[in-house]
């Protein structure tokens, strides 16, 4: 028992102090009927050395973006570069083994970092208020919808475009499923939402309109017009954004014009310095206008002063929360993703305005280079005409998407997300993402793999160095 302290002598002394004959006696509180009369059916204990070997063996059975593969996978989770400083800070025990800062006097580290996080998010989004984070992008979107329904005073309609991440749409549907509310999906036949159909779908019962920019297909939406449509109907505009995209794209709060844009903005913050971890834990970002602050779910940190007049930070506006308000709370969300909000804070501190712009530009330039190279082949065409930011949908004229994925894997390339399972009418399409990490050599090799043109690029395994001198 490497993690417990009590020796046999300790146990005896403690039992004596308690006045119990045995630990068994202490457990007699549990009615005999409900005592498990056997050992749990679990594999036997492993020491650290065995565990280390075991987990390394399991890890070696996977092929990951840093462990042997070149990744073009996106769809909401991206292989962006994580600077070493992010890991250094997030692995400080004082951060990751602390908990919710209920005792502000011994939690200023976390509280100040969360205040800085909130500030960074407001600057990223152009909105007034950010909370301390939610579970992930999808649940943040769903919480934003619940905010809008609550603010909508009886409005029950939630309008989502088909170009919103399908898993976000599904999550919103689940969240609304037991409440008064209906989710209406507006088609996006050309890879962007149809503005005419959007206009038709939005009515005076509409609580909110969602728009993802760039959308799930990587395409740039007409966010200004969509926002006007929502606002004209008295509905709230909920933006789903790509935080890296804001290196070049307009901030949600500035859609239409500064201060006239989205009312709530949410995103998946994984791109901001968090590993992909097969899908989580991630970082649900949520920001909104000041007028909605009392409806915000989750924790919020505020600045105040201590008894000596020193600036400090505390959890605030807690009357929104369930540990005070119980069934009247704005949400049941109790924890936050503190460690991943911290990672995002460190990441954005390292990037700065020029760094985020350059990162965004590299994603843009490289993804467009690959898109155009693929579109120039006989086998592929771009599925949509709309301009894209860092990912795009490519159509395999031969319709053999699964084969492409398998061939790619054999060559050490994760070539993209097949869209069939998510959009049956795009079963011949692949969603391809390109981050700043991809080199031109990898892009060229990707074209060769997808076109089965081994001659187009030298056959190299991805572990061989592209440049070493």
């Amino acid at each position: 028992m490497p993690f417990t302290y009590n020796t046999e002598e300790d146990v005896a002394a403690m039992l004596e102090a308690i006045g119990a004959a045995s630990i068994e006696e202490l457990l007699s509180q549990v009615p005999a009927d409900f005592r498990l009369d056997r050992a749990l059916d679990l594999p036997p204990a492993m020491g650290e050395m065995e565990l280390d070997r075991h987990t390394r063996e399991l890890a070696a059975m996977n092929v990951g973006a840093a462990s042997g593969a070149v990744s073009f996978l996106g769809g909401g989770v991206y292989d962006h570069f994580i600077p070493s400083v992010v890991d250094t800070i997030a692995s400080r025990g004082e951060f990751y083994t602390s908990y919710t800062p209920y005792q502000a006097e011994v939690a200023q580290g976390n509280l100040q970092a969360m205040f800085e996080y909130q500030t960074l998010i407001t600057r990223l989004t152009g909105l007034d208020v950010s909370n301390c984070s939610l579970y992930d992008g999808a649940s943040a979107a769903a919480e934003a919808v619940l905010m809008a329904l609550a603010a909508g005073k009886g409005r029950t309609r939630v309008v989502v475009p088909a170009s919103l991440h399908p898993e976000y749409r599904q999550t919103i549907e689940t969240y609304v499923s037991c409440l008064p509310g209906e989710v209406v999906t507006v088609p996006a036949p050309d890879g962007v939402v149809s503005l005419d159909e959007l206009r038709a779908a939005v009515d005076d019962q509409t609580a909110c309109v969602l728009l993802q920019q760039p959308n799930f297909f990587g395409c740039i939406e007409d966010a200004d017009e969509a926002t006007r449509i929502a606002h004209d109907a008295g509905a709230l505009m909920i933006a789903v954004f790509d935080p890296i995209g804001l290196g070049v794209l307009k901030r949600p709060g500035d859609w239409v014009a500064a201060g006239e844009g989205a009312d709530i903005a949410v995103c998946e913050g994984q791109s901001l310095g968090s590993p992909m971890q097969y899908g989580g834990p991630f970082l649900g970002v949520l920001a909104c206008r000041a007028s909605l602050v009392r409806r915000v779910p989750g924790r919020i940190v505020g600045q105040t002063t201590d008894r000596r007049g020193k600036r400090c930070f505390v959890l605030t506006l807690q009357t929104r929360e369930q540990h005070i308000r119980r069934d009247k709370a704005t949400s049941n969300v109790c924890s936050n993703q503190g460690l991943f909000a911290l990672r995002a804070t460190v990441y954005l501190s390292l990037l700065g305005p020029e760094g985020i712009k350059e990162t965004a530009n590299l994603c843009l330039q490289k993804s467009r280079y690959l898109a155009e190279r693929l579109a120039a082949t006989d086998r592929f065409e771009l599925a949509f005409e709309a301009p894209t930011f860092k990912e795009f949908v490519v159509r395999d004229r031969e319709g053999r998407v699964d084969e492409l994925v398998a061939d790619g894997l054999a060559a050490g390339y994760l070539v993209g997300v097949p869209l069939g399972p998510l959009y049956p009418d795009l079963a011949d399409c692949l969603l391809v993402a390109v981050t700043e990490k991809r080199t031109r050599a990898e892009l060229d090799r990707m074209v060769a793999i997808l076109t089965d043109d081994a001659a187009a690029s030298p056959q190299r395994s991805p572990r061989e160095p592209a440049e070493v001198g």
Partner: protein
Amino acid sequence: HETQLLFDLSKQGRRALRLPPCDVPERPIDGLLPAAALAPAPPALPELAEPQVVRHFTNLSTQNMSVDTHFYPLGSCTMKHNPKRNERAAALPGIADLHPYQPESSIQGMLHILHEMQEYLCEISGLPACSLQPAAGAHGELTALWVAAAYFKDQGQTHRTKVLVPDSAHGTNPASAVMAGFETVTVKTLVSGAVDMEDFRKKLDDNIAVFMITNPNTVGIFEPQIGEIGDEVHARGGLMYLDGANMNAILGISRPGDFGADMQHYNPHKTFSGPHGGGGPGAGPICVVEKLRPYLPAPVVAKRSAVSHQHSAKENPQSTIRNPQYYLDYSSSKSIGRVRSFFGNVGVLVRAYCYIRSHGPDGLRRVSEQAVLNANYLLSRVKHILPVPQGDRCMHEFVASARKLKTERGVTAMDIAKRLLDYGYHAPTVYFPQTVPEALMCEPTETESKETLDAFAETLFRITEEPAELLHEAPHTTAISRPDEVYAARNPMLCHCS
């Protein structure tokens, strides 16, 4: 000396990160994207040098108390040691770098971990079906209630609108019930912490959907009438939900499925040592009875072979690995759908997997035994200083009361909590549960020593002897003194204005 904010440190022109030059032909951005979509300038992030970022956050970190540095008896949060071996495993290439949309054949090791976790959690709970997807305990509650709602709807029992919740329950219980479309009914508890059976029977009717119970409950008592409660809920056609926040007390000792629970969540960041991360992330996997299985969120991890799930932990591991056989199963048409994006909080689950594998069946049971021993020992040392209304026994935690001290000397639970900080202890949870006046909820966990518990009890005693004035002004030695929370709430300053 005030700690500067990141924004105070910023200076135009500093750079901490240098991106490589663009290695494809570069074109003007406004030629690639529509002008209307473009920002006039990048967002106003601070401009810093790398050493500045390192020093800022390193120094910030030391303003926190944490399990790695201090005794942290924060009741109900199970602040146990976070094994470093788990961090190492979770950071391995091949674990940390997997994308959720990878082909299944490229992630068999990961799916093996997740499949085994489903099995382990089922075995520990005594419930046969599992979803690993919920992102936190509260999310698990909500997911289970959605599952219950879907089940009742499917059964044509839409009249079941009520969720019963004891008054000592975590606030997330009623909040989750409301989000799942139910109305909540509060059931009283006795001084002992047990459900007031009279009140329970008064509130129980045929409209019950779910009774949400925390067992051991938030005062650390194993509900003496849990059997009757389950029977009566079931007799009325309702489901019993077990808030698994306190599972650390009963691993291998008692299983929720055996004492009547139909559904439960786990908090792997509590019970299975996932670190708390300054507020998160956690995870909130749930287990349910067979009849609720079809309603679980999709996907679950399944095995292609026909081997019974219950016994796979004992199979020949070689055969398990050699044929890629794990896959994501989306097949249930009755599933409530998605409760989040992607598969789940896998990073937390990997740590929990390591924890369970590190302990095995005997080790897990010993975890609970030692947690119960430590709590009872601390109770025995503390009760003479601060009365413990629930009595002389507890499971993994107990709630002491400073009521007498407040009446006699004006010293509150908060005063004691703040003064403990001066002595290098994190405070217990205060003012929860609301059923105990001036509550101090102490959960030492199994990963503390008798010496630490003794020193803590002695400090508590010393504090109760100190002048009231000194305590009202506490803490005295921390980075800041008590913050003005009222001002913060009335004049919300939620970000740094540039």
